[in-house]
């Protein structure tokens, strides 16, 4: 029960702080694009608060799957975040949820709800967004699983709490070449999963991954936005808890450090986002995923031959 309590606390804390980092990222992005941008870093809070007060509109062809999807998306991403062992980093029984496969399949649940809702809206743009989200999954899943297999095999468990503990105490880590190579490929996978340029562009909603959002409004839109932000934090959190788990054992301190660490990554991603080129979705993936896949395979082979 204690673990569940801490899980909920950690989700609440991230939800409360995440819009702040989003605000900072927006200011930086605006500066880089020579725009004025939001007045201060609390703009995202104001946006969300305003959205919650608006009336709702839904496409008339949709049924309850579309209408309750934002809640489901929110719950799924929040559960993903809860599965990152931050505040309960010494309680191995937290592994009943904090398991790598649970995390991956919660991601699949997210994609499923996202896809079904986008098709259900009846809107052509939303459906294209849903279809692309599935393609992203197809490209990212192999890379991600290969990297995580290497980690799981080195740690001999899929319990994320234990893996984090082992890396923290140096039982496995960058001294093992396979681990180091895997971290590179996983970083790419995490970046793509967090929905950024060149793989996604949240500002051009009608043509890319987040096309679904074009059919939502008011509280639903706010919830979906929050879900996407939480997902980014969860994905960055996954990377950090496996490859950079250094943190305090005290839950509160650990939570603060975690939020700062993920926040820094979240904001830093803006630079890749804005300085990188844009590709058509398939072209971009073909160019880069094959390269990353090779990197991931190298780490797998390094493990297999026992280096």
């Amino acid at each position, binding site marked *: 029960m204690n673990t569940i309590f801490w899980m909920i606390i950690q989700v609440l804390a991230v939800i409360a702080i995440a819009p702040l980092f989003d605000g900072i990222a927006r200011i930086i992005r605006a500066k880089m694009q020579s725009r004025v941008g939001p007045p201060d870093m609390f703009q995202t809070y104001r946006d969300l608060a305003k959205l919650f007060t608006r009336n709702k509109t839904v496409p*008339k062809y949709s049924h309850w799957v579309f209408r309750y999807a934002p809640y489901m998306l929110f719950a799924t991403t929040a559960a993903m975040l809860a599965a990152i062992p931050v505040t309960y980093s010494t309680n191995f029984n937290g592994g009943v949820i904090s398991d790598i496969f649970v995390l991956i399949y919660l991601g699949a649940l997210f994609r499923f709800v996202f896809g079904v809702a986008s098709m259900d809206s009846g809107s052509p743009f939303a459906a294209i967004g849903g279809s692309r989200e599935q393609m992203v999954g197809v490209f990212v899943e192999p890379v991600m699983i290969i990297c995580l297999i290497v980690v799981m095999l080195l740690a001999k468990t899929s319990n994320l709490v234990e893996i984090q503990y082992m890396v923290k105490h140096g039982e496995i880590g960058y001294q093992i070449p396979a681990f180091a190579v895997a971290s590179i490929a996983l970083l790419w996978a995490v970046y793509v999963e967090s929905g950024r340029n060149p793989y996604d562009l949240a500002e051009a909603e009608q043509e890319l991954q987040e096309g679904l959002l074009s059919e939502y409004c008011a509280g639903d839109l706010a919830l979906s936005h929050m879900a996407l932000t939480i997902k980014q934090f969860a994905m960055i959190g996954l990377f950090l808890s496996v490859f950079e788990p250094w943190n305090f054992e005290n839950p509160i301190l650990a939570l603060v450090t975690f939020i700062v660490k993920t926040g820094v990554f979240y904001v830093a991603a803006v630079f890749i986002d804005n300085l990188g080129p844009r590709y058509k979705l398939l072209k971009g993936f073909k160019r880069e995923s094959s390269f990353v896949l090779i990197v991931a395979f190298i780490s797998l082979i390094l493990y297999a031959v026992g280096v």
Partner: protein
Amino acid sequence: MEMVYALYLLGAFVSIILYKENRVAGKIGFSIAAVASAIGVFHFLLSIGSNETLEIGGNFLFHPHFALDPLGKFFSFVISLISLASSIYSIQYADEYSKKGSIGVMAFLFNAFILSMLLVVASANVFWFMVFWELMTLVSYLLICFNDDEKSLKATVIYMGIAHLGGAMIMAAFLLLAKSSGSMEFAEFNITNLTPLSASIIFLLAFVGFGSKAGMFPIHVWLPKAHPAAPSNVSALMSGIMIKVAIFGIIKFCLWLPVMSWWGILILAIGALSALLGVLYALTQHDYKALLAYHSVENIGIILLGLGTGVYGLATHSPVLASIGFLGGLYHVLNHATFKGLLFLGAGSVLYTTHTKDMEILGGLAKKMPYTAFAFLIGAMAITALPPLNGFVSEWLTYQAMLQAALGDGVLYRLAFTLSIVALALTGALAVMCFVKVYSVIFGGAPRDKKIFEKAKEAPLSMIIGMFVLVVGCFAFGLGATTVVDNIMQVVHTFGGNYTAVKSGAIASPLGSIVSTPMIAVILMSMLALPFILIVMSINNKTTKNTVRETEPWACGFKYSPRMQMTASPFTGSLRKIMDWLFRADAKVIDQGYFKPVKYENHAKDIWWNIFYAPFIKIVSACSNKAQGFQNGNSNLYVLYVLAALCIFVGIGYLI
């Protein structure tokens, strides 16, 4: 156990006797099947850990003798469970066929089909196994024939062809095994005088023979043709349990024979290939029943991944690895039966009311048939292994088994197991895409064909009850995973090693990884509460009226038309583009003049047909053309043939 079998037999005969009262016969026949299955479910579940035997008379020339060990009990349970749902469903579904054929006959065959599957699992010697095995094939063949159009006839012929080949191989495997042990009784099989080579030959024969029934790659071609051709209640049985009976055969042979580690790797490789190719071909289908059939190929692949690991564990004398492998495989047998049965029943309800198998002209059906839509959604989420439903648990166990096997020594073994994990993960991602497509194209969005949509209505009560039996199954086997694992471990530890698979309310792998689906459900539910609180808080605000306005979807300022929305093929368009080296689709663009819409067709080909089957078919038909000369219709000549054959056999008998 006698009572269950006797009830099915009773159901079969009552319905055939009453065949003149067509509708009544069906109702009674299917009801008896439902009662028998319900008794079967409880009987087999409660006695899962014990052995049971049954003898019918001793005065026959060859006295029938059946035995159920825990493994057989487990499979009997799975068979009864799906039969329960399917027979309740059939009570009203069969009305659909009242004009096409006799429902009484259908109920007779339906009962006989279930009974023959139960008896295959219970057979204790080669003779009865083969008799009921072939009976199962024949009865299912007749059941497919209820939809007699040209396509389904072709499907049944392909089905029979491959079933014959498989049957012959199984027979050969059995005879070789029986010869070396000097007995046809399963209990007396012994392997002491088998050389590794002959053991491998027997294994390969049995693996390919049973695999042809299970629908593993590359002998899967009949499955996506025959399963959709059958009436949906029968498809649920065929895809849900008939192919599992073949899995039962493979397990049996692996337990009899002195297993070798490369057998495990072979099963694993075939499993990984089946899983990937099954889901890739499923993605390109427009016919939702064929799509589900391809998913059976995929899921058989996943089951084989678990079994392969288990066999590898047996071969390398690591009983704990064997038990987690078999645990994953058997759990997935149960799960796949549950959700695939559910999905086929759901598909049957859609077919019942829309009379089309093409999903491109459906849409928006969730508004007309909410219960079916809900059941189908749960089935779709279970088959894509989303937590906390049942599919997730078995895939988790399979992953754990393969992880543990990949820890062993040997670079090649490590690579084989890790690549299989990657294949399973990729299969998962593709399956999500596929089921998003199926569910939302059929049930979501705007109706694509107004006429069909207007006529559609919710399925009758018994069909909904039938589906919801399995919906409950999907939830129960997911959330009650620890109980299921406990029961399957009772089966597995009779041949594998024993380890504590359930630790303080969570499922544990031998490596020490733990997972608990109820906990995941608790977290999901508590996270679900949060947005509701946010919404309620904002509703108190005075500016918000709690009304939801319905509008047309946004279409860039144009007037919205349902034709604008996404259909099934563009949804998977980019995937098909990058996988074209496999699909070899020939896209056709048909211009029908200025005033009509351009037609665009793009159908993926199953290239394996041309590689593995077309050459054989060519040779066979060439040979039969040559052999035509013998068949001149003159009966005297036929008598001569008979005589000649007799002389040859006498000669052979004399020589030996």
